[in-house]
């Protein structure tokens, strides 16, 4: 290791936003041929650091040196030229353009009169061979799978002769097998002399794939270690800064049937099948986890149960009676509590007040309105009740919802839904982007609701989350659901295989066994 070149040297980076210190004297070194894992909770300052590195922000203090040359701050162009490459968590690809277009963007002079497509194709082919990346440069990005898109992003960086590749939460949307594939690629990259930083909060991956790890908390580097000399427990404690809140799950006691989906099929207007002959049973007291790689129909399943889409065939029964009319109002009326995937986009209306947001699903009912007139007193009263009961920190009932943090937004939505005592709860990615404390809070609330007799469906891409809360798991793949699986009877590996279509590895639970 001694004779290896120091590729990246970050010294004393500090960045303040008003009173908030997002980065506090951060120092970080990266050598050639090294994979570094950068760990930290949401809000620990990882994103800010990356934005500084890539010139989107300018640091208040500190310096960055790449390959021995100081990096000019505040210029994305300089960062790219210095050999920094980034793969964002949300891919920065234009879906309606080809892979070639996406890779070539910005690599040629803006004053040139013609694109040199031929030369670019040649280089892409060479890179694909060299790093065993399998991508067709002619296809439109919108036709590619998530894994393929990620490879395009890596290719984009390699095409620019990147020496330091940074990946932000690269495995968030991958199956365990795809993740392994990614880590193999990364290994290949560092063998050829590159250096890799990957940002994550999944501890298992850190241990599996990195050479060294750095933990960020409240904007500071709190822990650095060679990966081989540390453990998951230590890392977890360092990341959270104390003991991890424990979520206790009492044993399941399945009760009466609440929700039954029978051979449901949903197609889009172009006759493309979204949900394919899908059946699902949810009983009182159960938490059902839906695992799967995003884009396999989870959103449509959630939309169906939320009343946003109508099935083309099949039946949906709530409490034994068939639902004929699919609309959000009808579903709410039948006691379905809906926690949406995108809390800022669909869960809340940021420009309205906290009070108004809490009224969204029941403003037509007494006492919140009478004869079409809103009852502000009743609304304020309820708002105070919910905000104290669900520990929502906000500037009062009349403050704008957009000023709240992600965790408080989710608590507000939970409060809105759970205070109506729903019998069936559909929660789509309920803890996405939340810190450990808020995640535990959400899990505890869902478990409590189920033990009080509700049937809960949790859709998640995070297998750890499902192992924490779910009594039974279904794996979703291409619009179909696997049989019910008990978490104890399976492993992350097997679920991963099932998520990529190999169902045979799973041991399903028969329904009789459940009800006995």
């Amino acid at each position: 290791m001694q004779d290896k070149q120091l590729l990246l040297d970050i010294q004393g980076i500090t960045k303040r936003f008003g009173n908030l210190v997002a980065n506090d004297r951060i120092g970080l070194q990266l050598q050639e041929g090294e994979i570094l894992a950068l760990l930290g909770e949401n809000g620990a300052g990882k994103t800010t650091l990356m934005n500084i590195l890539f010139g989107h922000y300018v640091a208040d203090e500190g310096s960055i040196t790449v390959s021995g040359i100081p990096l000019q701050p505040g210029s994305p162009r300089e960062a790219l030229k210095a050999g920094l490459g980034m793969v964002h968590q949300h891919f920065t690809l234009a879906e309606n353009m080809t892979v070639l277009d996406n890779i070539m963007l910005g690599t040629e002079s803006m004053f040139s009169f013609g694109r040199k497509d031929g030369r670019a194709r040649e280089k892409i082919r060479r890179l694909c061979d060299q790093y065993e990346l399998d991508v067709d440069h002619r296809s439109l990005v919108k036709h590619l799978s998530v894994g393929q898109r990620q490879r395009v992003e890596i290719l984009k960086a390699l095409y620019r002769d990147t020496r330091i590749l940074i990946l932000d939460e690269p495995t968030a949307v991958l199956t365990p097998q795809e993740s392994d594939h990614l880590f193999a690629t990364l290994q290949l990259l560092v063998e050829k002399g590159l250096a890799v930083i990957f940002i994550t909060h999944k501890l298992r991956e850190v241990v599996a794939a990195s050479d060294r790890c750095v933990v960020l908390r409240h904007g500071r580097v709190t822990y650095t270690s060679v990966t081989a000399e540390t453990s998951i427990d230590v890392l977890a404690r360092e990341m959270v800064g104390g003991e991890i809140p424990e979520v206790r799950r009492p044993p399941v006691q399945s009760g009466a049937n609440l929700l039954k989906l029978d051979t449901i099929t949903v197609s889009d207007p172009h006759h493309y099948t979204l949900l394919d002959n899908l059946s699902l049973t949810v009983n009182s007291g159960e938490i059902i986890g839906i695992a799967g790689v995003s884009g396999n129909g989870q959103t449509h399943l959630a939309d169906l149960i939320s009343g946003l889409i109508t099935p083309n065939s099949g039946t949906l029964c709530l409490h034994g009676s068939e639902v004929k009319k699919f609309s959000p109002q009808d579903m709410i009326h039948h006691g379905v509590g809906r926690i949406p995937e995108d809390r800022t986009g669909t869960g809340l209306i940021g420009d309205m007040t906290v009070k108004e947001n809490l009224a969204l699903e029941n403003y037509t009912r007494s006492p919140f309105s009478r004869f079409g007139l809103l009852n502000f007193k009743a609304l304020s009263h309820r708002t105070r009740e919910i905000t104290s009961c669900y520990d929502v920190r906000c500037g009062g009932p009349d403050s704008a919802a957009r000023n709240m943090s992600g965790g408080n937004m989710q608590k507000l939505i939970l409060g809105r839904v759970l205070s109506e005592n729903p019998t069936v709860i559909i929660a789509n990615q309920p803890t996405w982007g939340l810190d450990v404390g808020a995640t535990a809070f959400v899990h505890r609330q869902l478990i409590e609701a189920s033990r009080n007799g509700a049937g809960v469906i949790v859709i998640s891409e995070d297998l750890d989350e499902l192992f924490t809360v779910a009594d039974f798991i279904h794996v979703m793949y291409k619009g179909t659901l696997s049989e019910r699986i008990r978490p104890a009877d399976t492993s992350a590996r097997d679920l991963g295989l099932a998520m990529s279509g190999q169902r045979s590895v799973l041991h399903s639970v028969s329904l009789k066994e459940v009800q006995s």
Partner: protein
Amino acid sequence: MDILHLLLETGFWVATVRMATPLIFGTLGELICERAGVLNLGIEGIMAAGCMAGWTWVYFGGDLWTGIVFAAFIGAMFGLLHSLFTVHLGLSQHVTGLGITMLASALSSFIFRMLLPSATTPPKIVPFAPVKIPVLGDIPVLGEILFYQSPVTLLAFLAVIGVAWFLYKTPAGLALCMTGENPMAVESQGLSVFAIRTLAVMAGSALMAIGGAFLTMSAFDAYYIGMVNGRGWICIALVVFSSWKPGKALLGAVLFAAFDAMQMRVQQQASMVVPYQFYLMMPYVFSILALIIMSRRSAYPKALLIPFRKGER
């Protein structure tokens, strides 16, 4: 019968191509703005400003071609204003565009009145004369329709080819299209979304202004207040009709002008039966119909109308 006869007449097609010219410029200009993700509802006013600027330049002794350049410059300045508001400040593209239209129209009228306070009949200039292109202009029928037109019309054809080449064959064109599809992709590759959008809106507005200048410097020889008369709004409909493609924009503009030329001819022949006002409504009705027909399949730029803020996701 009559219509068939009309379609075979060379003079009809000459008129069609002439009438299509401002629409071609306007549609191309709007197309460039929207491809970069910015709706430019300032088009109606910017065309009026182009009308005014080009005409004034020539009236006060300028040369015709520098008049076109001057009109383009004025257009680009309004484009700069629009991009300052919508791109840099992220204001509503709808309301800002309408504001630009109001401002540009009002300023044009005000300055026209100020420069010529006592003119009762609109003063005239010597407009562009049709130019016959050697060889090509001698082709029977087609030569007369396409290559014996005002030079500004020929410029419009060149602009279509130029814009198409730019969008599909140059690195800068790729960056422009990407900006309208996913600005984050552009920013992450070290290019400035703000700069690209600003330049696109300026260039697009310059083209719109040239379209306006054609009206006073080639189609007519004087400036009237309100002479753009909704052509800008029609161009916006034509951009949707063209699915944001330059070739189809040309097609749409010519098709549209053909209908317009046809209604004028029919109006002259049969004005007794249907009042002329109904013929004049046709362009607007056709625009709405075009929007309805294309609504199902139009693949608009994904980032259209969405302001980009640095560092936000």
